[in-house]
């Protein structure tokens, strides 16, 4: 190849990935280099294809939820919410207000953890390891919240079709305040370490640039699109749940480069924290908050035993209590917040243990071939995932298993635009650009 100066140079093929440190997720990028400049890019994905869509056809409607956790595993609660709302749309049912608020709160927490991970990881790949650790530290505080609500740090399986499993626990608000405060501290430190640092700005600014028109034609959504200046946010444009009642801003960028995406993500975290605070302020009271002592608490085991011998009179109007094995679990079960629709949501534990109707309902919802049986139909429901529009397209044939579940993965579109983003930049720009894509293998390859 002749570079104009009369020198004969040869293009070099550099194979980045799939087991490359920066490809945190797995993807193969075959770059053609002219010196250090990228002239051509071939992106190969599918290394984490786990057959989500096929597996969804083999399990019942609630059984899909653990699989959705593992789609975008950095913000599983948004996936949970999106899937459940899609099925609820298919069923034509609505959930209680409090449930909406809980879902909004937890999915915004998830969004913050996602952005923290994304920004932190791309900072780490640029060598700013300390920022990464600070951000993960903040993420730990948020995960403590998630664990407190859902019982798991990452793969939460918290939402159910028709509601959520377990109300917000006592002391959530205070804990949340603390976690947000720590997060804000970390964000301030990260700003100080990165935002005006010329090394960082030089790396980020002007690289991986894409215009709004191009982004839209690739179907890119989310922070990535907003960084180009197009203010499309599902939460604002097609409001779902209670987002239309919460006041928040949609941050947009101007140039659509890595730096804009960084700024947009940093700002979105602030906005998410604002949403959480507003939602916590507005959330209607629930069973836990109104009266934690409804009913006389008795151990669940005793309740089951009494129920088994037909001594219903002894256990009427009580609350089941679990064994005090872990700290704090001597308290009554936290009731699920769910739609009052017996054909969709499991009855409360008190009903299951204490009367035959509840027990029968419980069984009918669990047994193969019975379960939740939505009418025949198809729906598409989008939510704003951490990476953009996360849509679930569900086809039901009236059986207890989905006929087809399709998820529209937001980073699939972004990844398909990767050649566009990379060509012309240096090979070193691959790192921040790829980092700002926030590729999540589980979501990309499903």
């Amino acid at each position: 190849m002749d570079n104009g100066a009369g020198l004969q140079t040869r293009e070099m093929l550099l194979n980045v990935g799939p087991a490359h440190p920066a490809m945190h997720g797995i993807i193969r990028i075959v770059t053609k280099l002219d010196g250090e400049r990228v002239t051509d890019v071939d992106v190969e994905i599918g290394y984490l294809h786990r057959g989500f869509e096929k597996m969804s056809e083999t399990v019942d409607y609630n059984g899909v939820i653990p699989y959705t956790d593992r789609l975008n595993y950095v913000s599983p609660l948004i996936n949970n919410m999106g899937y459940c709302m899609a099925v609820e749309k298919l069923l034509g049912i609505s959930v209680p207000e409090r449930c909406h608020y809980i879902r909004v709160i937890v999915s915004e927490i998830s969004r913050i953890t996602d952005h923290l991970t994304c920004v932190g990881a791309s900072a780490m790949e640029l060598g700013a390891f300390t920022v990464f650790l600070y951000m993960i530290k903040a993420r730990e505080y948020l995960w403590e919240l998630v664990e407190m609500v859902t019982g798991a740090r990452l793969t939460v399986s918290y939402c159910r079709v028709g509601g959520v499993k377990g109300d917000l626990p006592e002391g959530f608000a205070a804990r949340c305040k603390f976690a947000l405060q720590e997060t804000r501290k970390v964000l301030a430190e990260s700003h100080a370490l990165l935002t005006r640092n010329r090394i960082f700005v030089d790396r980020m600014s002007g690289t991986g640039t894409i215009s709004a028109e191009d982004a839209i034609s690739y179907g890119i959504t989310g922070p990535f699109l907003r960084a180009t200046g197009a203010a499309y946010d599902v939460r604002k444009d097609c409001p779902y749940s209670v987002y239309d009642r919460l006041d928040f801003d949609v941050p947009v960028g101007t140039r659509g480069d890595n730096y804009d995406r960084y700024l947009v993500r940093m700002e979105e975290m602030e906005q998410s924290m604002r949403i959480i605070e507003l939602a916590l302020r507005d959330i209607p009271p629930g069973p836990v908050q109104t009266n934690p002592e409804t009913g006389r608490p008795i151990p669940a085991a005793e309740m089951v035993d009494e129920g088994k011998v037909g001594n219903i009179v002894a256990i009427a109007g009580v609350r089941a209590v679990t064994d005090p094995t872990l700290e704090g679990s001597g308290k009554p079960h936290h009731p699920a917040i769910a739609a009052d629709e017996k054909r969709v949501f499991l009855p409360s534990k008190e009903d299951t243990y204490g009367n035959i109707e509840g027990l029968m309902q419980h069984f009918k919802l669990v047994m193969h071939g019975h379960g939740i049986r939505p009418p025949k139909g198809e729906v598409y429901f989008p939510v704003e995932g951490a990476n953009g529009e996360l849509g679930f397209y569900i086809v039901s044939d009236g059986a207890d298993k989905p006929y087809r579940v399709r998820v529209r993965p937001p980073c699939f579109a972004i990844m398909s635009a990767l050649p566009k983003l990379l060509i012309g930049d240096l090979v070193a720009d691959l790192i921040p650009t790829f980092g700002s894509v926030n590729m999540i293998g589980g979501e990309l390859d499903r």
Partner: protein
Amino acid sequence: MTAADLIQAVRGRFPDAVIGSHDYRGDATVIIHSPPLLEVARTLKQDPAFRMNFLMDLTAVDYSAFGKKPDRAFFASSGVPVRPPPQIPDPEPWPGPPSPARFALVYHFFSSLRKHRIRMEVPVEEQEAELDSLTSLWPGADWLEREVWDMFGIRFRGHGNLKRILMYEEFSGHPLRKDYPVNKRQPLLGPVN
């Protein structure tokens, strides 16, 4: 535009192409013949009435097993089977699969300018499973169409680079087809011991 208006607008523009429509659960859906697919899509994108600038999603559904799931053993004590009915009665039932054809391509369009969505379904028979590619209109369709080819084996005319995307080249068959067993493996590496 509401869903009904959208459907009406598409029907008005393409009276021959549209073979069905519904707005089940508020999702505007039109079912069109495959030949005018590209033209319809172009209109949806460029016509000021639609301005669907996003191709949000493109996928397919294999309807070959629709409603034909082998039943679990269920013994009816009275001799008349009492099947659990669909859970919640549906006031406006869904009209059913788009056509008797095996596959249906499902396109979801969205207009960020007018904030409306439309779903377009294109039935395809297995024998002539080939459609026009939308890559000329939306470059984002490239990978989506590759995925449909990979998972369903539906080809796209005019797609320059139609090869597997999620599975490996050595893989034979199309896993999301209903007749592909869920755990039929084609490993690249055999077990060590």
